């Protein structure tokens, strides 16, 4: 934890790293929410809001691995439909935080190689690979259907593998943070 606290202090004194990592992480979080289908772009004629009457039950109803039901929908003209899925919102916040820390460490390793001894390649992998996994898990069904003729018998195996992409990506993001923090050499 002391390494983490030191890194937070370091980031406070290097606001440009904080700003860049925060911007990208939030953008990533929004893209995750879009790819999960909770933000949809289609023609909307008038503002409308819809709610479920039993939100506590619906909110914890899982529709697919790491995808929960939405409890409200907001149709915003001209072409936004936003769905409120509380558990996935929490998951999005967690992913934003983990990606933010990974990116902060990555940028630090690139800009201050003496401070963070991660090699550039390792740093890139730690930050990007888990992010790709999370994004891919949401568009996986489309990919399988597109290439079902080529994938053949491997398709069903892929369906099972995709179910684990989000927990794997969270684990890899945490590992990336731990690895990044242990290679930090900050002295405050």
């Amino acid at each position: 934890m002391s390494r983490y606290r030191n890194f937070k202090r370091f980031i406070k004194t290097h606001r440009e790293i904080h700003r860049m990592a925060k911007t990208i992480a939030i953008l990533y979080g929004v893209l995750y929410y879009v790819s999960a289908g909770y933000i949809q772009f289609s023609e909307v004629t008038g503002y409308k809001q819809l709610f479920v009457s039993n939100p506590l039950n619906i909110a914890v109803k899982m529709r697919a691995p790491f995808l929960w039901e939405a409890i409200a929908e907001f149709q915003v003209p001209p072409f936004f439909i936003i769905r409120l899925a509380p558990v996935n919102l929490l998951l999005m916040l967690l992913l934003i935080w983990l990606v933010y820390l990974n990116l902060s460490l990555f940028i630090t390793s690139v800009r201050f190689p003496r401070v963070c001894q991660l090699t550039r390649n390792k740093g890139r992998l730690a930050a990007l690979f888990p992010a790709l996994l999370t994004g891919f898990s949401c568009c996986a069904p489309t990919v399988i259907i597109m290439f079902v003729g080529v994938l053949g018998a491997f398709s069903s195996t892929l369906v099972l593998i995709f179910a684990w992409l989000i927990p794997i990506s969270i684990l890899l993001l945490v590992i990336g943070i731990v690895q990044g923090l242990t290679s930090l050499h900050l002295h405050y």
Partner: protein
Amino acid sequence: MKHFHRLWVIPTVLIFLLAACSSEEAPVSVEQTNETILTSDKEEAAGTVLIESVPIEPVPYERADALLDNIHSGGVPKDGIPSIDTPVYAKVADVYDDYDLKAQFFVLELEDAVYLYPQSILVWHEIVNLDEHGVAVTYCPLTGSCITYEYPEGLDTTFGTSGKLINSNLLMYDRATDVQISQIDGVGLENDLTGYTLNTIPTFWADWADVRDVYSDGLVLTDETGFFRDYNRDPYGSYTEEEGYNYYRNDGVIFPLMDVEQSATFVDKHVVIGIKEGDERLALNPSLVKDEDIYYFQVGDAKMVAAYDETIDVVRVFYHEGEETVSLESLLDNKTPNYFEVMWFAWYAFYPDTEVIK
């Protein structure tokens, strides 16, 4: 802000708590208005499996073990694809211009009304429970089969989706007994429902252009399902457009099939009419009937006739014992066998010994 860095712990803990509490059998809300979605007592109970004492004796079913051994996960939890348990309908006149003319609809003709189910909605729900009629309309997008089943006799029940598949086909479950039933096979696989064959009611695929005029008094299922889905997007492709990725038209099947050696009689996704009569199975090519208007054939000892109904561009099948000079109109009161449209690969995977009329 001093302890801001600890905030990430909150969503993490909440997610795992909620994931742990997530119930595959959580009650679902079903009816919605413009502003709110209401829930009736019935919906509160839906999704909960209440094992009932079953007034049905199990009978030997030699295929049960083979089918149970070939269950594959579809990648979603039980009831993750939520059935529609309180369908809300609109009059045809009220939605007359709301659909593409080529949009596919499932037509169910019951005594009180004709019900029209948009494929674009059922692709997200797969089952509509019509409790008041004691039937469930079931649809499996991966095998292109829409079959209406009567609930097992004497059971106060509904059907749900298990999240699993056999031969890429929907594996339903009966909510009163928690017994699994393959959609195409339509026979109970476990416990007291072992060997119980569900009765079917003919259900047809037709274009909106035809059904909206032929069934002008019909009732159309609305998108007030109680769940938020993008009903303008079919996750598997499209029946109205040729372009882009399209499971319905491309080669290949996602999940393993029981009979690995596929038949080249038709291409995989070619639609046949599957007919069951006792232990006999027959795949009838609908194009043949459309060319001939009336086609006589036999399945086992049963004489049947298939007639082309040009009003909605479908083929209807009836038992027929009389002379072979009949019209569709004269057949409408005849009894119907168990038949439905289905993609060839799936029919063949379930019934490799099927007869075929090309």
